């Protein structure tokens, strides 16, 4: 596999390609939510998204040796997920009841999507988290945001903030810890 600047996970991917299950588990855990979210936006169904996400990673595990690093790893995984979703979507539609329109003699197939509005909830939780991040110490917030929102490397963040790379690493970690603690303590009981 050629090195690709989009592939932060190069070393993990390489290990997974050599059969290292731990490395693959890491990649799967890292990308599972993104795959799930992508599938959810496609299927609007939690159950289908979960099933498809699991199928996706089974295929990823089977085919990871074919990943050459020509695209970002997630792009490659995403393509597998969406192809599975398309097939699922089509086969679901074709399995549903067929109805006939008496006046037209046309065969009609019927499929139902879940109502996406039913999954829109807990807005307040997200607002609380956003507000919490806003209140993080400036140094943590900046490092965290540059990494998570902008996808900057530690070296880039180091240059931008004129801070040693080790400090950047520590700040991002501390920001994550703070946010996770907040979620656990403040939102866990809702």
């Amino acid at each position, binding site marked *: 596999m050629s090195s690709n600047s989009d592939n932060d996970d190069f070393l993990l991917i390489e290990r997974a390609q050599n059969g290292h299950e731990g490395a693959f588990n890491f990649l799967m855990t890292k990308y599972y939510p*993104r795959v799930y979210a992508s599938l*959810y936006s496609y299927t609007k169904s939690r159950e289908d998204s979960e099933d498809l996400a699991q199928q996706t990673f089974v295929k990823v595990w089977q085919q990871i040796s074919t990943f050459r690093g020509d695209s970002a790893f997630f792009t490659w995984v995403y393509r597998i997920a969406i192809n599975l979703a398309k097939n699922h979507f*089509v086969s679901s539609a074709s399995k549903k009841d067929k109805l006939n329109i008496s006046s037209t003699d046309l065969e*009609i197939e*019927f499929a139902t999507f879940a109502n996406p509005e039913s*999954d829109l909830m807990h807005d307040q939780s*997200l607002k609380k988290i956003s507000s919490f*991040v806003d209140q993080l110490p400036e140094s943590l917030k900046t490092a965290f945001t540059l990494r998570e929102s902008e996808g900057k490397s530690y070296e880039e963040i180091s240059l931008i903030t004129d801070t040693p790379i080790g400090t950047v690493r520590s700040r991002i970690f501390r920001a994550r810890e703070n946010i996770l603690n907040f979620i656990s303590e403040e939102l866990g009981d809702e």
Partner: protein
Amino acid sequence: MSNNIDEKLSALYDGELDANEIDEVLRMLDKDANLQKKLSSYALMSTSINNLNNVQSIKSNSKVRNYSFWFSNSITAAATVLLTLFAINQFDFSRMSEDISAKNQLNIAMSSKEAKEIVSKAEENLVDHVMHVINNPDIDNSTPYDIDLRNVGYNRMSSNGRMFNKGNKNFLLRIEKKNLGINKVRYWQYGDKMIHVVPLTDGRVVTIYGNIDTQSAIDVANSITN
């Protein structure tokens, strides 16, 4: 020690850990459920932030996202679901790590079943089309703006639009010059709306998306060929 390994986990998550430290973290992860949970949490947090862009491109009512703040501008279904699972239900994504070989075997069986269910390219195009109509109802370069449906009782909702209504029925109409490989009416329910895809005799396809029953949609499509 714990803090040190957690920080290394965070760095590995970002692809920023030195090669000689990776195996140490992977070994710890293999036997430490809390560390696995932490990794899942990082992934959920990151996805919730970054998913905003992706989902907004799918949602027709997307809002402009400001640089540097996540969550604050709009709430998306996927991000909300993730956070709901994460914060409220303590859903454990790391359970996916449990048995790869079993899943592998399962998938071999599924693959053969799946092989039987592989659909034609035409069907795939149809699905793409329907998903496109759902996700990007405003993107349409092929439908003319001068379609007149008054002969079947529908009025245009704006002078240059493709939305029509009659009483409580209203819908978006599209005409594709390609036939999408279908020779029969297909329809789907999406939320409280219907999507009808109706082939015309001249090879075009009419898509009608909105609050309209199937017979009325067919009547509308037939009126276009008359």
